[in-house]
């Protein structure tokens, strides 16, 4: 017999029997698979892995969004304004030249001029067009009482009298806007005689019929520790048709008294 025929005869495939078939089917059943599908346990593991990845990616995305929002919010917070000094002005104080009132340091305190004789412009706002913070109330550590005497109307012209009354009312209103200041009118002072005033302010409208101008003065008196009074007089209005309102001028006057240099302190 030829070798190749002998090989074919000797290599006839033996049937492993039904036990082999049963063993295969048992293993397939244990695997719990559908044909070509995903086993239940395998599917659960894959779903678990995907769920874990999804949760992780979600947490990372949420953290990124939160960080971006926080950064944006921090970028929008304006820096707190530098408190204006209350005491004597430092070298950075630029006094507004005003012949009729005390020097006004409200907006120039702490700002150094870039050139002598000129007031440095405040820093330009950022491109984010952040609205300028509202003006903060000046922190005045001292509290004092001002007694405002009744308007002394020496003016004879009716128009001048009316103008003086307007400025007097505006002065009362501006004094009462200051929380560190207690304003007493004369009738109130009479009602509480035991309360002493630190300053006495008197407003007088002069009779200027011959000069052709109106003149309203503010007299400030302060009791000195060594006795006596310190007095100062300020011109409030010298123009019948001023380019500022009574409220604006009264506010300027009050601020000049509060922030100084205050001649009575």
């Amino acid at each position: 017999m030829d070798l190749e025929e002998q090989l074919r005869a000797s290599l006839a495939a033996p049937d492993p029997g039904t036990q082999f078939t049963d063993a295969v089917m048992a293993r397939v059943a244990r695997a719990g698979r559908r044909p070509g599908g995903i086993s239940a346990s395998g599917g659960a593991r894959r779903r678990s892995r995907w769920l874990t990845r999804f949760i992780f990616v979600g947490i990372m995305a949420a953290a990124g969004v939160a960080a971006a929002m926080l950064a944006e919010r921090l970028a929008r917070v304006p820096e707190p304004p530098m408190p204006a000094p209350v005491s004597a002005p430092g070298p950075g104080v630029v006094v507004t030249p005003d012949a009729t009132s005390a020097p006004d340091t409200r907006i120039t305190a702490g700002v150094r001029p870039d050139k002598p004789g000129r007031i440095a412009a405040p820093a330009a706002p950022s491109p984010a067009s952040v609205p300028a913070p509202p003006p903060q109330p000046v922190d005045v550590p001292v509290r004092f009482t001002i007694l405002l005497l009744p308007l002394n109307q020496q003016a004879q012209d009716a128009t001048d009298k009316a103008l003086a009354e307007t400025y007097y009312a505006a002065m009362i209103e501006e004094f009462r806007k200051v929380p560190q200041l207690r304003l007493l009118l004369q009738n109130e002072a009479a009602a509480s005689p035991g309360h002493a005033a630190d300053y006495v302010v008197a407003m007088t409208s002069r009779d200027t019929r011959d000069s052709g101008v109106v003149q309203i003065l503010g007299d400030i008196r302060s009791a000195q520790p060594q006795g006596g009074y310190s007095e100062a007089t300020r011109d409030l209005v010298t123009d019948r048709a001023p380019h500022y309102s009574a409220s604006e001028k009264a506010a300027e006057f009050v601020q000049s008294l509060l922030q100084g240099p205050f001649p009575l302190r």
Partner: protein
Amino acid sequence: MDSQSAPSSASAAPAPAGEASLLQLAQDGDREAFRQLVIQHQARVFGIALRFTGQRSDAEELAQDVFVKLHAALVRITSAAHLTHWLLRTVSHRAIDRLRQQARQGSRVSLEVLGEDPQALAPESTHDPLAAAQLRRLLLQLQPDARAVMLLRYQEDLDPTDIAAVLEMPLATVKSHLRRSLEWLRAQCAGGQHGS
């Protein structure tokens, strides 16, 4: 060749007429249909595994692994011929891998064990049973690739082209393995006859 690609003509025998429907049913999840497919192909798969390993227990384990893997890959089988090709390819590669792993570990198949295991022997044909057993022992001494070629050629009756496709081997290499293995077997058989 990829396991998903259907063979050109790599089938040892024409697929039974009902095998295509069995395959379809099995792909749809019919366990009984898959069982029938196992019954139809288990002798061929187990036979190759047995000729490779030389031990029935190892052969059963290897063949079972192949069918379990088939069940997992059943949806990728496109035809009955593809199924046969897939089984032959998978069992051959797994058997070759196992032999190479055993060779690296230094373990070798004991011819004496094979000879003493009556179940390891195939049902003897009407020819000389001693000569058949000797041939099987000699086949176990071939290198894994050459053994795979000889098994596919003389057990599955594949032509060299199909063997090359199943084993992903050049056709010339297949023919070379066939020629050298036959020459070596002839020499061994002649020497044995002379020596006995």
